[in-house]
């Protein structure tokens, strides 16, 4: 008569462990793949690209060279006045408190100096665009940012950055100053999935588009 022992407990445990290990590998691959796909749908979306195009033209119609100079300037925008007092502010002579620790020029809502003396006229329009299009930040950078998709936030939590554990700003800082005749504007939009404004960062998603700025 054949032996009819069936599975013993140890065998059940071993099989379950193997299954578990396999599932963990499959699951991690699946999550990575889903996150990458989700990021790509929120990166260079045609609607955001057109918005970015017109916004970049809008900014360029003002004194855009001023922004380029700021980008090249080793002093931070906020420290500039202080730094000018203490040195001529170049990479060699600027004090450590004066030197920039980042490689991009940031445009935020309400930044007035980029309009020069036209800000009083442009402020309301600039603010309306900013709110209506749900812009979070705009960066001007001279490096190639074609790999930027790696750094947009995770689909479930925008602030859980997955670009070598760094945020978008962190990523931009890792780039070298590239060809100084080529500039890129990176537009970072932030809204809820249904397109409404973010409230307390809950359910917020980041959308990204970048435009090459030429003929400066």
């Amino acid at each position, binding site marked *: 008569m054949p032996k009819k022992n069936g599975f013993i407990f140890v065998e059940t445990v071993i099989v379950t*462990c193997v299954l578990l290990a396999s599932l963990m590998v499959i*699951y991690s691959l699946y*999550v990575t793949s889903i996150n990458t796909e989700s990021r790509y749908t929120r990166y260079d979306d*045609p*609607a955001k690209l057109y918005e970015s195009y*017109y916004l970049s033209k809008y900014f360029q119609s003002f004194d855009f060279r001023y922004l380029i100079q700021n980008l090249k300037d080793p002093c931070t925008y906020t420290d500039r006045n202080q730094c000018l007092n203490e040195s001529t502010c170049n990479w060699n002579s600027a004090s450590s408190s004066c030197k920039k620790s980042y490689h991009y020029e940031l445009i935020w809502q309400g930044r007035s100096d980029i309009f020069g003396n036209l800000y009083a*006229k442009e402020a309301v329009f600039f603010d309306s665009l900013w709110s209506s299009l749900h812009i979070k930040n705009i960066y001007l950078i001279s490096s190639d940012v074609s790999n930027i998709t790696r750094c947009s936030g995770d689909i479930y939590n925008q602030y859980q950055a997955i670009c070598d554990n760094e945020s978008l700003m962190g990523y931009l800082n890792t780039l070298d100053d590239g060809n100084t005749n080529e500039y890129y504007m990176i537009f970072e939009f932030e809204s809820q999935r249904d397109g409404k404004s973010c409230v307390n960062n809950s359910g917020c998603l980041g959308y990204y588009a970048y435009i090459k700025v030429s003929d400066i």
Partner: protein
Amino acid sequence: MNKKGITLVEIVISVALISVVMLFLFRLLTDMQYERDHASYAKSNQQVRASIMEHIQNDFQNLGLQSVTLSEDKKSILFAFQNSVSKTLNLTEHSLTYADEETWEMKKDNDDTKIDIGNVEVKKYFPDPSCNDLSSTGNCSTYASYHIIIPVVTGLNTNVIDDIELFYIGLASKMS
């Protein structure tokens, strides 16, 4: 013959281990369902959506947008361009027709996918008339802007990357 069977403790441990496996499986299935509900339509519809926006935005740029008028029933949008050219975008729940030349049928994941005509919006940002007054603190930009949003909904879900958005900034003096 050994007819001891398995003990209660062994059953409990086996069930616990299998539960862990099931937990992962459940999470996987939940994620898949979430993706299906929220992203699949955007991906399958991306080409049609991009084509619509490209076609109209090209006209904005090449012809120079002057004004945008949304009809009362929100089923048509009239675009007036420089040199007295005008084109109309007609909307139904499942299609868009532009200037009687091009019709795009929206791809359907299910019967609930449609253009949310009731929520079509045309936002305009124009300089305030009071800007002639030097002390005005209103919008006194030399630029004006139109932002047109045509929402596309899949069932009860609204996803901004399904929506058809059109945007234009131009000199206010050339727009109305």
